[in-house]
């Protein structure tokens, strides 16, 4: 029996060495471990052996050895197959040119949202307003009487029903004061219209953002504080602000607010016309006549207002040189503005 097992063991080792695929391994398994296989045959021969226990152990250990080697060979074969699969797999190229394009926001939307977020965080409500207004909202309620030279500054589009396209976001001041009364903190972005021919620096249709803060004892000191704080947030740096007297009939005193030029650090460069300062937004204490027309008690309340040129801000922020790109509808220009 022992000899027979040794002989089989030798034959198995030789056969296993030649088995290179799953099919020949399976045939080998059947030849040795199948119902009519060599192991079964050995078991059958057991009845003719004297020392059954010793022989039985020999058969069992042979069987275990065959099973183990078959498993090992099968696993090796599977591993080789996986390795071959990996080797044969296609290598991908992540640098292939992407074909799916992201959507895009209009740059005015992005800049407006950025500024809105700053003001919202400071307790300002965001208002929307009409683009078509009357002479009253656009001029009279803003202390700009008929024949006032201020009406010369802005060439207005008039409509055949007597209304007009608003020339500035200030046209909403009166309505918003009447809507909320004092105290009040509001910003109102909006589209404005001026009847002028367009070129790289001029558009007849552009965006502004107006803001108002009205409360008890709101002062010039508060105005400077808020403008500095807000603009530092908007520009994400500690901006220096400078106020100069500026004339706007709806504020008194009125100011032109400049911020320090970041491009040259205040030394003077072409962007700031060598002054070190960039003229950014007109602002001022709301004129008592304007407050009164808005139904505000001027003995109790005062306030300030300011106007930011959103279109100009977008040009500064993104380095847009030609203002006409904004209304061009050209996706080659506009699709670049994916997100904030």
């Amino acid at each position, binding site marked *: 029996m022992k000899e027979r097992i040794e002989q089989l063991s030798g034959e198995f080792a030789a056969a296993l060495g030649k088995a290179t695929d799953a099919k020949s391994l399976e045939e080998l398994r059947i030849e040795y471990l199948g119902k009519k296989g060599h192991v079964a045959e050995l078991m059958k021969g057991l009845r003719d052996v004297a020392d059954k226990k010793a022989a039985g152990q020999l058969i069992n250990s042979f069987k275990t050895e065959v099973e183990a080697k078959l498993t090992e060979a099968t696993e090796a074969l599977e591993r080789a197959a996986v390795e071959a699969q990996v080797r044969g797999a296609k290598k991908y190229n992540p640098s292939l040119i992407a074909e799916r394009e992201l959507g895009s926001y209009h740059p005015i939307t992005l800049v407006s949202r950025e500024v809105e977020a700053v003001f919202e965080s400071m307790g300002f409500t965001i208002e929307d307003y009409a683009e078509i207004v009357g002479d009253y909202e656009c001029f009279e309620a803003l202390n700009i009487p008929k024949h006032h030279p201020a009406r010369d500054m802005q060439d207005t589009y008039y*409509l055949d029903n007597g209304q007009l396209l608003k020339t500035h976001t200030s046209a909403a001041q009166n309505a918003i004061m009447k809507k909320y009364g004092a105290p009040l903190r509001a910003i109102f972005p909006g589209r404005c219209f001026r009847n002028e021919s367009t070129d790289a620096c001029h558009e007849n249709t552009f965006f502004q953002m107006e803001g108002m803060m009205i409360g008890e004892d709101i002062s010039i000191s508060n105005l400077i504080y808020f403008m500095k704080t807000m603009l530092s947030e908007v520009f994400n740096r500690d901006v220096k602000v400078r106020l100069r007297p500026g004339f706007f009939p709806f504020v008194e005193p009125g100011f032109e607010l400049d911020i320090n030029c970041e491009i040259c650090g205040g030394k003077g460069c072409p962007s700031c016309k060598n002054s070190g300062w960039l003229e950014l937004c007109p602002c001022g204490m709301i004129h008592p006549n304007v407050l009164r027309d808005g139904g505000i008690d001027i003995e109790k309340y005062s306030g300030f207002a300011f106007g930011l040129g959103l279109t100009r801000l977008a040009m500064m922020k993104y380095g847009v040189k030609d203002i006409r790109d904004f209304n061009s509808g050209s996706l080659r220009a506009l699709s670049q503005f994916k997100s904030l």
Partner: protein
Amino acid sequence: MLLSMRWIGDFVDFSGLDKKALIHNFTLSTAEVEDIIVKGEDTYGVVVAKVLSVENHPNSKKLHLLKVDQGDKVVDIVCGAPNVREGMLVALATEGGSVSGHKITKATVAGFDSYGMCCSEAELGISDDNSGIWDIERDLPEGVALGTDIKEIFDIDDIIFEVDNKSLTNRPDLWSHYGIAREFATIISRPLKPLTLASLDEYKDLPAVAVDVKATETVWRYSAIKVENIKRKLSPANMRIRLYYCGSRAINFLADLTNYVMMEVGQPMHAFDNRKVDRIEVQTFDAPFEFETLDGTVRKMDESMMMITSGDVPVAVAGIMGGEQSKIEDDTDSLLLESATFDGVSVRKTSTRLGLRTDASQRYEKMLDPELCHVATARLLSLLFECDGGAKVISSFTDVYVNKYPTITLEFDKRYVDRYTGIDIDTDTIVRTLTGLGFGVKRDGESFTVTVPSWRATKDVTIKADIIEEITRIYGYDNFEIFTSHSALAPVRKEVQKSEEDRMKDLLVKAYRFHEVHSYIWSDDAKNRELGIATPENVRVINAQTPDHSVLRVSMIPTLLYMVKENKAYRDEFGIFEIGHVVEGLKADGLCNEQKKLGCVLYSKSASEEELFLRARDAVCELVGDILHKSCVFESAECDYDFEHPKNSFDVLVEGKKVGFLSVPHPVVLANIDKKCAVAFFELNTAAFASVEPGLNKYAEPSKYPAIDIDMTFVCNSSEVVFGRVVEAAGAAADGLLDGVKSRGIYVDENGTEALTLRFSFVSKEKTLSKQELAPTTEKVAKALAEIGLSIKA
């Protein structure tokens, strides 16, 4: 406006101060300075010299060889000026000197050495006269030694600054050197020197000028005086230099004098030749006529325009420009001098209508102080006598003061100033500032009574808040301590429509990868014509830049369609959208019916129109679902616009309310965009959208039991099926077991009959359903669907 620091220095002592720094302070306290130009800096070493001899150059017709005495020595000069002559006094740029930046060195000119240059006025930068060298003798005071630096005699060194005219619109007093000097004096707390004036009282016994102001509505004051025996023709050099530096041009002595006074005190003056004008009327005419102004232009005048006439013959357009016929000639030696205040609005209207803006009209538009009439005349006479001792006044100062501005007095206290400024500006500073600016100030403890000076009282300073500006701008905004406010906290109010519009943009950009664009509020008729769209009649812009842009848009879609056409060369597939304002005609009250709409257009070169249409449909459904938590229904409808496809226009309804439409282009419009492409679009009214109360996000607990799918096939005309209705009807009939409905496709047989297969998902919360159990339910569903036109295919 250009201003000379030297001129201003006549009235304020700048000694010891940095003038450029002062100009910077002027920007911060008064008005924006746009530019600073230093004059004379690069001209030096130019002396008074005498031409001793003049010889012709042997080889040149133009050049002369001079011996010139420059004081310390006689030098050889080669000179090309046509007017050079022996004995002439000249401005000689000596060797080592500089003329307007051009260095003077020994040079060899056409074979001869030259040790300097005889200068023209233009070369020195003091006028644009380059016709010859400056014949300096007529401008020199007596007893000037040869070799004297000309800068010691003439005001060549100066600092000129330019103030933005727009920033002076509300300050008529600042259109003059004297007014600007008052600002400087206050800023640096130094006294303002008075103007040197002639006394007009001396002439009160002389005969008056005949002045008849008929246009009393538009004239505040008209004054006139006559002067004769004026011999001087050329203005003094320093006057010419100042005029030139300030952007004017020397013409002749009398014209220069009126310009000089206007620039100094801000009052426009007009000198008529007294031989042609010896009486004055101010009036308008009943009929249009032609008038030649002194610039030689014949202008069409109308009935609204105020004229100065003499014996009813027009001689000047009031406040704007004199007439050619009565202007000062070279031989004029007597004049009638006008110093008047015309109404700003009237002058502005005439000036606009004529397209003629002059230094005078610009000042009148700002509403001048009528008190200036007297000051300006007295100042002019003083200057005239200084320059021409023989001049003689031959009339009284005739003064028709038609309308006077009331004196304005304002009262306030320190508390008001504190409250408005937010800081503590002491009372002494308040008094000093206001006094410096010419206000009359009475102080009683912390209360002030302030009288507004006449030059600020024409419209500029009327209320207390105006006084705050005066105090704070001189105090300096850079000197303000800044504080936050003490306002109470309050929640920020949200506008529903605005936040919904923001969410629409987010969804279309992020989920659909569309691009947001902006366009104009008017229709573009030219582009519409190109697309085959008739621009719908609507409210019009009266003064559009081009007639094509005169009708306001009623829909966002046409412009977006045109943008699709413009972009299609660069992309195979894209979507664009805009949220913007449109006008749907007029409301009952005559005002524009302004609406805000989201317009969205999809374009594809590869997808079918139906696919694209369904993509647009999906976008609408998701906008409604995402923002309103509701579903929408599409109903076949009549087209609102001619650019829609008549068969494929659908109203979008939410809770039965129309919020917009979904459509594809009319075939004609599509062909004009591109013959081989697909386009679909929708438009939503964002206000109508916002008026729908958003639904709650409800949670439906999922069943623990598996669902069972049952397919049913119906005979129908699939394009007529309203699937929302199908789901609704099936759900209502399904005993609460229906979990979902999907379309499995449409099969068209050889006869053209359509068969639609729907897969119904049923689920129970209590148990696992079997087909047998469901049979009664599916029968009910089939029956319900048969009622709305879907019968089970046999």
